[in-house]
């Protein structure tokens, strides 16, 4: 019998907001433990939550980017469980009326485009972080109350690689929207994976296994792939599977049972009486919708169509949105956008890496790279000189034409002047000249190099070649 896997993902992503979800404390990673805290986020007696407008807006925006509806009524619920990192011992979340519902994500998978349905993207709050020492534990509440977006898919994913590609696409979308930095090292993305298997052709789902708290996409891929094999193995040997929660042991590369359905929590959800429902007006929703930007896949497709870029170049610009934005401005009206892309991806990128700056720090106008490319295309300068001009642009911010003018870098295309250079080179190097006459084509390159050197690189290389041939051939 052949089996297929059914995978659903619940991804928790910290929102990028100035302050936390219910209080004015900074939403900031890396501060000294328990310095970004106040009575509200450590759950002192008597405090009340006040919703963060920026988080509500970014949640709606995220929902729109995931093609979700934004209902006109959402509410808050308490999820009750005791844990030392949970300051109120209940977590505020959205159970049955989430902020956004029923969308989908499209992403490239294999040769085609996959679509995964999104059940909901709802808002909740993060908890603190426990650290265990030899004989005691500590909790840092800086993270407590940070707004957390939970994105729940339908069980539409069918293998580990697809899950991996979906997660990367999701990350790209949320980063694009400025919704989250999705920084894995900072723990801003965490994932619960639901996996079951069933014989192909069977409609009902198999027993679901949940793997909780994965903090890397490659981990999700490895765990899912292990778990699918494990489940199929159990069924092949005539065993039965149970609904359970399992833990992924990354070092060993296996999953282990944590708890079965019988000892599942009863979270005693109920509507939070301290918060009013969120009832966004049509105007508010329209305002958020106006800020919806192009998604990565759409952008890739557009970059390829509008600028005739190869997929690999388009992906570079999708992967680094700021660089992509920069490219689009630089390539405006360019005859050869691919040449502009090369400059942006190679020379500019290298310089930025070298200096540790970003495109925002650049001194020259974004149109300057296009102009530089045009100077080369129009044979005003050759491409070697263009490198020097670019360095100068980077240093001083001057326009390329100005630099060429000031430094006298214009290509020499005057045939009389070039002829003089050529004659000098031939006289100074009778050997190679004779070699060429005797049919050794490569000797011409040597002579050409001498001419370029003598002209300080400004000679028009194409013309030099033609002139040399003409002189030596006569």
């Amino acid at each position, binding site marked *: 019998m052949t089996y297929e896997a059914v995978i659903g993902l619940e991804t928790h992503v910290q929102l990028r907001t100035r302050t936390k979800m219910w209080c004015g404390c900074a939403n900031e990673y890396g501060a000294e433990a328990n310095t970004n805290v106040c*009575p509200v986020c*450590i*759950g*002192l*007696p*008597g*405090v*009340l*939550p*006040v*919703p963060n407008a920026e988080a509500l807006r970014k949640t709606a925006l995220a929902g729109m980017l995931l093609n979700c509806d934004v209902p006109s009524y959402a509410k808050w619920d*308490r999820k*009750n469980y*005791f*844990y*030392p990192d949970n*300051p*109120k*011992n*209940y977590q505020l979340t959205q159970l049955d009326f989430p902020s956004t519902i029923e969308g989908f994500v499209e992403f490239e998978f294999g040769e085609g485009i996959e679509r995964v349905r999104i059940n909901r993207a709802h808002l909740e709050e993060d908890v603190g972080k426990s650290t265990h020492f030899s004989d005691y534990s500590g*909790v840092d*509440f800086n993270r407590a109350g940070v707004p957390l977006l939970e994105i729940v898919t339908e069980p539409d994913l069918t293998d580990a690689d697809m899950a991996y590609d979906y997660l990367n696409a999701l990350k790209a979308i949320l980063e694009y929207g400025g919704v989250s930095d999705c920084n894995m090292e900072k723990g801003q993305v965490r994932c619960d994976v639901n996996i079951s298997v069933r014989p192909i052709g069977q409609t009902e789902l198999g027993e679901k296994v949940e793997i909780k708290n994965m903090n890397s996409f490659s981990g999700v891929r490895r765990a899912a792939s292990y778990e699918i094999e494990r489940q199929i193995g159990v069924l092949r040997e005539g065993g039965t599977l149970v609904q359970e929660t399992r833990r992924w042991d990354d070092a060993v590369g296996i999953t282990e049972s944590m708890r079965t359905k019988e000892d599942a929590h*009863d979270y*005693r*959800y*109920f509507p939070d*009486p*301290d*918060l*009013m429902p969120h009832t966004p007006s049509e105007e508010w929703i329209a305002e958020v919708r106006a800020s919806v930007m192009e998604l990565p896949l759409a952008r890739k497709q557009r970059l390829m169509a509008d600028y005739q870029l190869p997929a690999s170049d388009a992906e570079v610009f999708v992967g680094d949105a700021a660089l992509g934005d920069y490219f689009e401005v630089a390539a405006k009206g360019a005859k050869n956008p691919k040449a502009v892309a090369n400059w942006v991806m190679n020379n500019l990128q290298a310089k930025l890496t070298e200096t540790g700056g970003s495109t925002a720090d650049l001194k020259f106008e974004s149109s300057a790279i296009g102009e530089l490319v045009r100077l080369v295309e129009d044979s005003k300068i050759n491409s070697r000189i263009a490198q020097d001009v670019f360095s100068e642009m980077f240093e001083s911010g001057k326009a390329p034409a100005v630099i060429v003018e000031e430094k006298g870098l214009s290509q020499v295309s005057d045939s009389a002047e070039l002829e003089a250079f050529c004659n000098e080179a031939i006289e100074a190097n009778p050997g190679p000249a004779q070699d060429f006459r005797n049919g050794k084509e490569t000797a011409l390159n040597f002579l050409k190099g001498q001419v370029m050197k003598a002209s300080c690189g400004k000679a028009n290389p194409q013309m030099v070649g033609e002139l040399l041939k003409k002189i030596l051939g006569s």
Partner: protein
Amino acid sequence: MPHTLTISQLTDKLAQGELSSREATQSCLDRIAAVDGQLNAFISHDPEDALAQADAADAALASGKSKPLLGVPIAMKDVIAVNGHPLNCASKILGDFNSPYDATVTEKLREAGAVIFGRVNMDEFAMGSSTENSAFGPARNPWNPDCIPGGSSGGSAVAVAADECIASLASDTGGSIRQPAALCGCVGLKPTYGRVSRYGLVAFASSLDQVGPLTKDVRDAATMLGVIAGEDKRDSTNVPEPVPDYIAALTGDVKGLKIGLPKEYQVEGLDPEVKAATEAAVAKLEKQGAEVKEISLPHTQYAIATYYIIATAEASTNLARFEGVRYGARVDGASPEEMNRATRGAGFGEEVKRRIILGTYVLSSGYYDAYYLRAQKVRTLIRQDFLNAFKEVDLIASPTTPTPAFKIGEKANDPLQMYLSDIFTISCNVAGLCGISIPCGFSVSGLPLGLQLLGKPFGEPDLLRAAHAYEQATEWHTKRPKIG
């Protein structure tokens, strides 16, 4: 004897320079020293801090400043946060916790110039009707120390009735202000839900709790409400309704005001003396020009059950934060679970545990629909009953309590009997209305009786107007217990 003064009397004397805030505050402190050993209204108080505030108020008075409560000593129920002062909620579980912040109502009192002093006794976490459920021992009724003062704000009512302060701030979840006010012979006002910020009020049942004053007369209640009411961005359930001039509502005139008497309030167990006093009070208002008519609140019989489901459900999770991890008393254990169990087992009193268990049960999966969800639906019906009634009448009158104060220990082992004593006050919170209890007589045994008036949401001006008019025509509120 400055401690016997009302707010309006004291502020007059302070303005005239006949008295200083220090003298008034010292007078309250002396009174506490004289009588509180017997009454146990105060859990703690800090005389030095109180006198320092009084001196600051005297300096402000001397410079010609005028504020509604400038220099007036006000005692705080131990459930309202005051920066730098203990916040115990009359429980052991908070240990030596001091609040690092002010409640919004505390801030408002400070802005109004009050001398905020003392932590007054209450039922633990405001759960109870007798102040017997305090980890700091029961408070006693100044009219008869063998009797309970009511609860949960028993200490607040005792402190006002026994002149240990000029006025007091408390909270009302199901009658916790009005019931002790009735049993101790003072005025207790529960504002409309959303009228006063709950920020800094330790939550018992978030959808029912409201802060309000206990005072010596109705004018003082109006003054206090004017100070504490108003918008607060820190409380999402707060309603940004403009605050009217409550003193201006005290016209002394009730002509044309329609007062309803719910026929469902003729309950079994209603004490004949209480019944007679209420009827006399209503007759008095009628004589003053009010119109009285019978009304119906058909879902009254479900109010107590509804209340105890919603209140305990909310309380069970509101009180989850008390487990010794971040603050308060901690009993160590080998694991976080064991530490929780040990801390909460040792820290909470019996009634609090009972309600946490009840609330946990009604929210449990499989029971939620049958209890919590149904209670919310009935709550809507009860509110609708009142809104319908208020189409016909302006106010609803009833006894505040079915009986006068009972003996300490009399109902301590019968929680259900204790819950039933809240029959008249509970609906007001369930429906989100405003209500007031004012003195309306005494039992043969010399215990105070209270008349309750209920008003529509944000109908405090009518409520205060009628209460004040009645008070002007009677002398019950001027009576003081003989003690000390």
